[in-house]
């Protein structure tokens, strides 16, 4: 439970650099416990960089500001520490790794559990990835299969804060319904009380995931900054009608 004003995640005045390029520019973001937010924005606006910085990937160097998770300052924590605190990320383009299978990773995640094989096969069946368990991780998978493999790992990790980078891109209609089902399962903290959910952050371009999964709030990113935040349906509708150019103009006018 949050120890910081009811927020599970608080980002204060965050600036991030990759190499010599500033990719995030004075970001402020608060996500209350139990809420799932969406990040919208053009390609290159900084959405993925924000997620990678929250996860702690070392290539994303924090030059200013802080990241608080459950009130704890994690700005200097490495990826493993953040993962063990309960933060997880489904990447859009995860690496292919020779000799390491999806089963290997899941076996690690379930290493202290009774009957890990049963848990692994159960998750693989529900994600329709049985045939990919023993292949090199992410090797030769379609876009949709990669999304499902990443989501399967989130389900195994059962984090308290999940991030997903474009879970709906490159996914066909039928698979999108399955993704929606799995995402709902990921964020469900109490099946008897669907309103009680785990927190998270989802990047979406098309907004199609919004139709199968309710989002509490959306943020529009422009040039490494959060332009505006508000109701996801209204923001998505506005962007569909007027494009991100209107957001850029709006930011420029401030």
């Amino acid at each position, binding site marked *: 439970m949050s120890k910081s004003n009811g927020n599970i995640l608080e980002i204060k005045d965050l600036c991030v650099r990759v190499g010599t390029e500033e990719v995030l520019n004075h970001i402020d973001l608060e996500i209350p416990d139990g809420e799932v937010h969406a990040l919208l924005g053009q390609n290159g606006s900084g959405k993925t960089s924000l997620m990678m910085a929250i996860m702690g*990937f070392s290539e994303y160097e924090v030059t200013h500001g802080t990241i608080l998770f459950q009130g704890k300052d994690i700005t200097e924590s490495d990826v493993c520490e953040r993962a063990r605190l309960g933060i997880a990320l489904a990447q859009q383009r995860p690496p292919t790794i020779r000799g*390491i299978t999806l089963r290997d*990773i899941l076996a*690690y995640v379930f290493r202290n559990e009774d009957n890990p094989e049963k848990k692994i096969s159960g998750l693989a069946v529900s994600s329709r990835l049985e045939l990919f368990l023993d292949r090199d991780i992410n090797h030769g998978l379609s876009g949709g299969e990669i999304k499902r493999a990443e989501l399967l790992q989130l389900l195994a990790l059962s984090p308290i804060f999940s991030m997903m980078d474009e879970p709906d891109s490159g996914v066909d209609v039928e698979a999108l319904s399955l993704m929606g089902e799995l995402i709902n399962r990921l964020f469900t903290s109490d099946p008897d009380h669907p309103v009680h959910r785990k927190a998270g952050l989802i990047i979406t371009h098309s907004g199609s995931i919004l139709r199968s999964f309710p989002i509490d709030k959306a943020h529009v990113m422009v040039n490494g900054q959060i332009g505006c935040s508000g109701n996801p349906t209204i923001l998505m509708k506005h962007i569909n009608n007027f494009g991100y150019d209107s957001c850029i103009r709006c930011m420029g006018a401030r």
Partner: protein
Amino acid sequence: MVLNDADREALTVTGVYLGSTVRSATIVVCDLAQVCLENNTRGFELMPISSALERYSWLREQYFFKALPADLDETVSRCAKEVDPLGFFLHVDKGVKIALPVQAAMYMKNEDIVQMIHNVIILEEDSELQLITGCLAGHEIKTGTHIAIEEQYIGKNARLVSTMVHAWGSEQFVYPHTGTVVEEGGRFESNYVSLRPAKHFVSNPQSWLIGKGASAKYLTVVLASPGSVIETGGTVYLNAEDTSAELAHRGVCTGGVMNQGGLLVGTASCKAHVDCAGMLLFCGEGGYIESVPGLRSMHPDARMSHEASIGKIAPEQVQYLMSKGMEEREAISMLIRGFLGTDVEGLGAELDGQIAKIVEVAGHGED
């Protein structure tokens, strides 16, 4: 010479377990003597090569230096001059499929030994054998020279799976030479794993696929550490229709020199691939990996390919695994283990533990 508990323990490092019920036969050469022979299985003969030469007059004439030329190089010539060679003779009868692996150990227990071995393995038509060979120095042993000749004859539709595990002293010189002749439909699979590198190791096993549909598959997994020079090759002659060969090298270098080679020669309609992959964790003083996979096609229907790659551990892969909750060292260990890909059939968990130690050594190199 009698093997004590420490010797028995040393042998397990290479997958050789004395008195084990999961092996069909055992032969051990210790320094310059044959010390142990167990065979409780029918259908094949296992004996010291000296005994076989006495018993079978045809052995020298038909199988000595027929899979390898006696004048191949200086070390082979030196072995060829041995009147009373060390080593073993293994003969599997026609149609016999040995269920449990046969194990052999070439053990150098003392310093400064020059061990010269000559093994002959014959699999008659339709037979199958899994052979585990451990070649090693005692734990505290640093010096010595091991020269080995192994000639293997795989008959029609026979199958030999050979797993060779080495663990050497840091000042030792090791020159194994293997020649394999594979007849029609025969299959040869070789897994070579080096747990502790020698000062200088040179190996270029040669296979002749002489019958239609014969195949050879090599996986070589080696570690080069500071002060070691490791040269691994492999030459396969695909001399008959529908033959196939795969040559895969996986090397992790934490210093020292590693040369990965391999030459596939296609003289008939065949399919062959050679793949050299190196992971360079530390160069140390003048260390490097050099990969030179080679192809020689002498037939228009020979489909041949090669690839080579050398790199360090990719940081994005380490961090990807860390994002699943692994500590950095755990992630590196998993990556190296995955890279080496040593899913070697027939070896026990103890050997997995030894491989984990290599991974751990390499993991320290990343700090």
